[in-house]
C-alpha cells in the first residue's frame, strides 16, 4: 500500500531536513511544475486527479484554483494561503504532516501558488502548534536559502514569497474568510460570499485558501500523474486520506489509507478495536461538526459521497468514537460548549443560540432538564441551519446535536425523567 504523504517520514518523529527531503525526491515536483508546466497545466492536472479539499468542505481543488483571474490583466498581488489552523476537535492530522515533513507542505504550496500565479503565500498556523512553528520556520528558511522561495525560483521567472503567521487562537480563524480578516489584522469574522476569495480575498486581491493535507498531495500528483493518483483510492476521489481515531479504542492515532477505507477497517484494523470493557456505541466521523453514525454505518466507505449518503460528512476524516460508558448527552454538551465559546459573535442565531443549547444540555446532564427542552433543542437545529446563520460554524455545530437528538433520544428522555445523568460520574466527559 502506497503512503505518499507519510511514507517517507522518519520513525522517530523528527522532521525531514531539506537534504533528507531532497534525497527522497523532494522539490522535484515543484521544479518540474515551475520550470516545465504552465499554471493552467498544473490546474488541469489537479482537476484530472480529482483532488478534493481536505479541510472539511471537500471542494475540487483544481476547480477552486481555476476561478482565480489569470494573466496580465489580473489584479496584483495575488495570494496563496495555507490553512493550518486545525482547531476542529478530534483533529490533528495537519499537525502530524507539518511536524513530520514541513518541506512537503512548502513544496505543495509552491506548486499550488504557481498554479494561480500567486506572488505571496502565507501559512496561517494554529497558535498552539509550537513545534510546527519551529519546524516550518526552519524549513522556510532552508527553502529560501536554496532559492526555492523568493525571486526567480528554480531559475525560472516566477517569484514567490512565503510568510508564517501564527494565529491568536480562535476556532473561527479556520473558516477561510474569517482567516483572511484575521490575517489582515481585523476581527476574525467571516465574510459573505460572493465575492469569493478567489476574486476578492486577502487585502481585496485574488486569493486561494487550501488545507495543509490538500497541499501535501500536490507534489505527488505532479510527480506521478493523475491516473496514478486516482489509482491510490478505493473510491472515485483520488489519493489517500489521513484518517484518525480518538476515543476509547486500543490504539488511537492517524493512518494514511486509501481514500474510501471503511469505518470498520479503520477502527478495528488500524485502531485495533475498542478497549477492554468498552463497547462501540457510535462515532462522529469527521471532526466535531459532523453527524453521529452508529453500528449500522460501520461498512460505509469514508469518502465524500458515501459519507453524505450515510447522513454525515467526511469532514476532516478524523473520527471520535463514543463508547457505551460515555454519556452521549454529556458528550454533546461538551461539543456544544466548545462551539458556543468559539462562535465569533457576528450573527444572532449562532451567538445567542449556541449558549442557550449549551445551557439546556448542561441542565439536562445535571438533572434539571425539562420535557420542553427537547423541542427547544430541535428548533435550534433548524434556526441555526445553513443559510440562516452567516457562516458554516453554527450548522456544523448542529450536525452532532441533530443526529444525537435522534440516535440518543432515549438517553435524553431518561435524563429528564430521572432528573440525573444515568451514566454516573465518568459518563460526563469525552476522552
Amino acid at each position, binding site marked *: 500500500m502506497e503512503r505518499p504523504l507519510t511514507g517517507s517520514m522518519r520513525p522517530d518523529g523528527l522532521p525531514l531536513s531539506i537534504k533528507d527531503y531532497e534525497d527522497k525526491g523532494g522539490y522535484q515536483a515543484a521544479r518540474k511544475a515551475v520550470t516545465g508546466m504552465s499554471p493552467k497545466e498544473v490546474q488541469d492536472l489537479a482537476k484530472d486527479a480529482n483532488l478534493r479539499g481536505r479541510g472539511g468542505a471537500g471542494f475540487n481543488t483544481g476547480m477552486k484554483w481555476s476561478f482565480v483571474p489569470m494573466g496580465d490583466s489580473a489584479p496584483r498581488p495575488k495570494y496563496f494561503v495555507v490553512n493550518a489552523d486545525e482547531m476542529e476537535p478530534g483533529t490533528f492530522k495537519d499537525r502530524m504532516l507539518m511536524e513530520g515533513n514541513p518541506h512537503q507542505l512548502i513544496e505543495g504550496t509552491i506548486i499550488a501558488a504557481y498554479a494561480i500565479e500567486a506572488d505571496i503565500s502565507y501559512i496561517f498556523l494554529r497558535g498552539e502548534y509550537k513545534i510546527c512553528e519551529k519546524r516550518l520556520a526552519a524549513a522556510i528558511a532552508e527553502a529560501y536559502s536554496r532559492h526555492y522561495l523568493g525571486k526567480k525560483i528554480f531559475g525560472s521567472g516566477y517569484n514567490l514569497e512565503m510568510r508564517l503567521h501564527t494565529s491568536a487562537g480562535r476556532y473561527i480563524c479556520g473558516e477561510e474568510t474569517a482567516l483572511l480578516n484575521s490575517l489582515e489584522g481585523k*476581527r476574525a469574522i467571516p465574510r459573505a460570499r460572493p*465575492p469569493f476569495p478567489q476574486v476578492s480575498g486577502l487585502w481585496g486581491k485574488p486569493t486561494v485558501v487550501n488545507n495543509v493535507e490538500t497541499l501535501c498531495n500536490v507534489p505527488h500528483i505532479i510527480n506521478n500523474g493523475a491516473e496514478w493518483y486516482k489509482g491510490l483510492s478505493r473510491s472515485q476521489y483520488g489519493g489517500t486520506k489521513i484518517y484518525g481515531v480518538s476515543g476509547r479504542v486500543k490504539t488511537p492515532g492517524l493512518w494514511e489509507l486509501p481514500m474510501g477505507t471503511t469505518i470498520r477497517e479503520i477502527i478495528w484494523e488500524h485502531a485495533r478495536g475498542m478497549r477492554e470493557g468498552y463497547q462501540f456505541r457510535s462515532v462522529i466521523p469527521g471532526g466535531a461538526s459532523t453527524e453521529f453514525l452508529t453500528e449500522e454505518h460501520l461498512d460505509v466507505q469514508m469518502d465524500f459521497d458515501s459519507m453524505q449518503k450515510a447522513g454525515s460528512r467526511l469532514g476532516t476524516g478524523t473520527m471520535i468514537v463514543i463508547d457505551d460508558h460515555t454519556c452521549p448527552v454529556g458528550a454533546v454538551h461538551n461539543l456544544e460548549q466548545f462551539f458556543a465559546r468559539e462562535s465569533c459573535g457576528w450573527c444572532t442565531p449562532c*451567538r445567542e443560540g*449556541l449558549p442557550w443549547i449549551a445551557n439546556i444540555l448542561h441542565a439536562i446532564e445535571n438533572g434539571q432538564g425539562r420535557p420542553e427542552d427537547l423541542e427547544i433543542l430541535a428548533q435550534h437545529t433548524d434556526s441555526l441551519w445553513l443559510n440562516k446563520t452567516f457562516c458554516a460554524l453554527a450548522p456544523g455545530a448542529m450536525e452532532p446535536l441533530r443526529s444525537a437528538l435522534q440516535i440518543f433520544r432515549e438517553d435524553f428522555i431518561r435524563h429528564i425523567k430521572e432528573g440525573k445523568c444515568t451514566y454516573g460520574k465518568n459518563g460526563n466527559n469525552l476522552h
Partner: protein
Amino acid sequence: MAKMATIYIDNKPYTVKEGDNLLHACLSLGFDIPYFCWHPAMHSVGACRQCAVKQFKDENDTLGRIVMSCMTPAVEGTRISIDDEEVRAFRKSIIEFLMTNHPHDCPVCDEGGECHLQDMTVMTGHSYRRFRFKKRTYRNQYLGPFVNHEMNRCIQCYRCVRFYRDYAGGRDFGAFASHHHVYFGRHKEGALENEFSGNLVEICPTGVFTDKTFKRHYTRKWDLQTAPSVCVHCGLGCNTIPGERYGLLRRIQNRYNGAVNGYFLCDRGRFGYEFVNAERRIRQPLMKRSSLPVPREEVMQHLSRLIYFGARVIGIGSPRASLEGNFALRSLVGEDHFYTGVSAMDARLLEKIIMVLAKGPARSSSLAEAGAADAVFVLGEDVTNSAPLLALSLRQSVRLKPMEIDKRLHIPEWDDSAVRNAAQQEKRPLFVATPYRTKLEEVSTQAYHAAPDDLARLGFAVAHELDNRSPAVKGLPKKLHTLAEGIARVLSQAEHPLIVSGTGCGSEAVLESAANVAWALCRKNRSADLCFAVPECNSLGLALMGEGSVSDAFKAVHDGAVDTAIILENDLYLRAETEDVNSFFDKVRNVIVIDHSVTGTASKADVVVPAAAFAEGDGTLVNNEGRAQRFYQVFVPDRDIEESWRWLRDIMAASGRPGLKHWTGLDDIVQAMSNSIKAFKNIAESNVPAGYRITGQHIPRQPHRYSGRTAMHANISVVEPKPPEDKDSPLSFSMEGFSGQPPAGLIPRFWAPGWNSVQALNKFQSEVGGPLTGGDPGQRLFEPVQESTVSYFDEVPGAFSPRENELLLVRVYHIFGSEELSAMSPCIAESAPGPYIGLKPEDAELFQVSEGRDVRISINDKEYSLPVKYLPELPSGVGVLPAGLRGLEGLELPAWGRINNQAKG
C-alpha cells in the same frame, strides 16, 4: 435612469430598481420587514439575520429557501415571500434569541417608547420567554458628557462600531471580545473623541447609547412637543428636531434632509442646545436704570421715545439671527443705516463668496452632493471643526465605488463589507491644503501646510494648469508646481470634482484661487462644484441682505451721526477688538439690544429686550449652499420672549416711524422681503403658508400619545387652557390635528404606525435613503450662471515670507468652543480646550519657549499671555490661535504677532 425589474412578493408583481437589495426594495414599497444591522446610510452586512424572507427559484418552487433580504439583490423575476409561515417563525426566533440576554428594563430605559428593538419585537410577534438561564451582564463605561452607555441592552447588531469606525473614521471605539460576550465601547473609559459620536444615540436600535444631556431632563418621546428646525451652530444648516416639555428644551434629534444632513448631525449641533435653557437667558425686558425687569408696555414706551421720527438710529444685524429679524431691523432703520454686524474681514469674505456663487459658472454643492464628489480639493478650511458635517460627507466621498474597484467583481454598492474588503486602503482623491494639520488628512491623498498666501498660490497654480487664462503664479518652487500639476490632473479627470474652501483662514486670495480652480474646471466642461464653509447659521443670508460691517457701524458713530443703536442678537465683542467696541458704546447715547442671552454687549445696553432662541420662534436661515430653510417654533416661551422681528415690528409701530409694517405673521414679512430684495425673490416659493390645512386640520406639534395635557397646568388652574395660536405656520401647539404625513418641510417628528423609533423615517421617504416624499425641503437662492463670462481673479499674492521675531497668526478652529451659542451649553463648554498658541517646535525653540509654558505675544499692540502647544506640521513663521475661545474673542486674524519672551528666556 436606473434599470427596473419586476419582482414578486407573495405572488404579487412589483417594480423595483434592479440590483437593490430586497430589504431596501421592500421597505421602499412600504412593506414591513424587521431589521437591525442594515442601516440605509451604512447598508448591508448580513449580521443580525432578522430580515429573512423566503426566496423561490420560480413559480413552481414551493419549498423555497430562507435568505437575508438585505443581502439578496432584486433581479428580474425574483420571487419572495415575506408572509411565509416558516420565515415568519424564523424571524420570531431571532427576536427570541436577542431577548435571551436583554434586560427587559424598558420602563427605566431611555429608549423606551422609541425603541427599534421594541418595535421589531412587536412586529415579529415574539412575546413569551422560554430562556430560563442566567443573563449575561456587562460593565458600562463613562464615555464623556454626551453619550450614556448601558451595555446590557446590546443586541450586537454592530451598527455602532460600523458607524463610528467605518463611516465616521473614529479610532477610539470598537467591538471587543467574542461569542456572546461581544462588547462595544472604548479600550478604556473616557470621552468619545469623534465629532459625530452623538449619532450613536440614533443609530443604536436599543438603549445602549442614549443622549446624556437628555437624561438629565428626561421625557418620553410621546410627551415631547416637537417641530422642524434648523441647527444654528454652523453655516451648514443641518435639519433638526428639537423637543420640549414644560418650557424646557430637552434634546435635539436629527431631521432627515436628503440634500443636507441626511441621517446625521455633529455633536456640536446635537448637544449645543442647552444655551436655550441656560441661566444666561434674558427672559424679561431690562433697562439700565432699573434693577428689576420692566413691564413690556413701559419698555415699548421708552423705546418709542428713543426711536422717534427723526432720531438718528442705526441697526446692527446678526449672522446668527433669522433673515426676518435682520430684515425687520433693516426696515426699521432704513437700508442706509443697517449694518450686517459681522467683522470687517468676514464681510469682505462673505461678499466675495456670494459674488463667486452668484456670478460664476460653478454650482454651490449641497452636503449630499459633496459626499458624492469623485475628487476633492480642500483649500484653506479645517472643515472638521468649522463645518463638521461637511467633513463627514467628504469622508464618504473618498470611498471607492465597486465599479471603480473592479467591475468584474460584480459587488453591489450596498454590500458594505465586500466593498470595504475589496477597496481596502484605496481611496478616491482628496487633497487638503491648510495652514495646520487637520483631521481630514487621515483620509487624504496628499496634504500641504502653508501660510494663507501660499495656499492661495497653490490654488492659483492649479487653476492655471487647468486653464492658462487663469493667471500664472510667478516664482513657484518646483515641488509646489509638481503638486499643482498633480492636483489639476486628478481634478480634470474627475466627473464631479469639488473645491472646498471657506472663511476659515481669513484670506480673500484663498477664496479667489478656489473660485478660479472651480471655474477653470467648468470651462473644461467638468461639472465642478464649490462648497464654501461660512462661520454662522445665517452668514450667507445676512450677506445677501446688506453690506456694512461692525467697523462701518463704528465709523458711522465716530462720524457723529448716531443717537441710538439697535443691536440684534449680536455680541460685538466677538466681532471687533474690545477697545473699539467700548469706544463705540461710549459714543452712542442709547444702546438697545435684542437678544436671548446675556452677552458682553447686552450688559452694556440701556435697554435689553428678550428675543426668542431658535426653538422659540419661526424664521428663515440661509446655509452655506445658499439654501433658505425655515425653522419652526417648537414651544411657546415665557410671556415676554418673542421673535426679534415681532419686537421690531412692534417697536416700529410704537415709534410711529414711516413705513409701518402690518406684519401679522411670518408669511407677511417673508413676502415683504421677497418683494424688496432681489436675492430673496423666490424665497417663499417652497414655503407652506400659515393658512395651509390638511383636511381642514393643523399639523400637531404634540404626538398623538401626548400625556398629562389636562394635568400639566392643574396646579395653576383646573381649566385646561386653550392652546396658543400659531400665526406663523400650519403647526399647532396641541395634539389635535392631522395624523398623517405632512409636507416634507413640516414634519415635526418621525413616527409611523408600528414604527415608534427614528427608523420610522423610512415611511417618510419616497424611497428608502432617498428624498423625503414630495422633495427635500429648502429653497436654493442662487444657481450658477451657465455661460458665465466672469473673468478669473487675477491678483496672485506673493509668496509668504516669515519675519524675524514675528509670527503670522492664523485662526485654528475647535468644534467645541469656537462657536458662540453652543459654547454656552455646559457639555460643550466642558469639551472645549482653553486658549493657547500653537507653534512649530522649531519656531518655539527660536523664541526660546517650550510646550506648556506661557508665552507673551503682542498683536496689534495688545499683549496676550498664552500657553504654548506644539504643532509640528505648521509652516515656519506661522502660529495659530484658537478662534472664538474665551480670552481671544474679537481678535481679527490673520495678524502678525511679536513674541515677547525672548529677553527673559
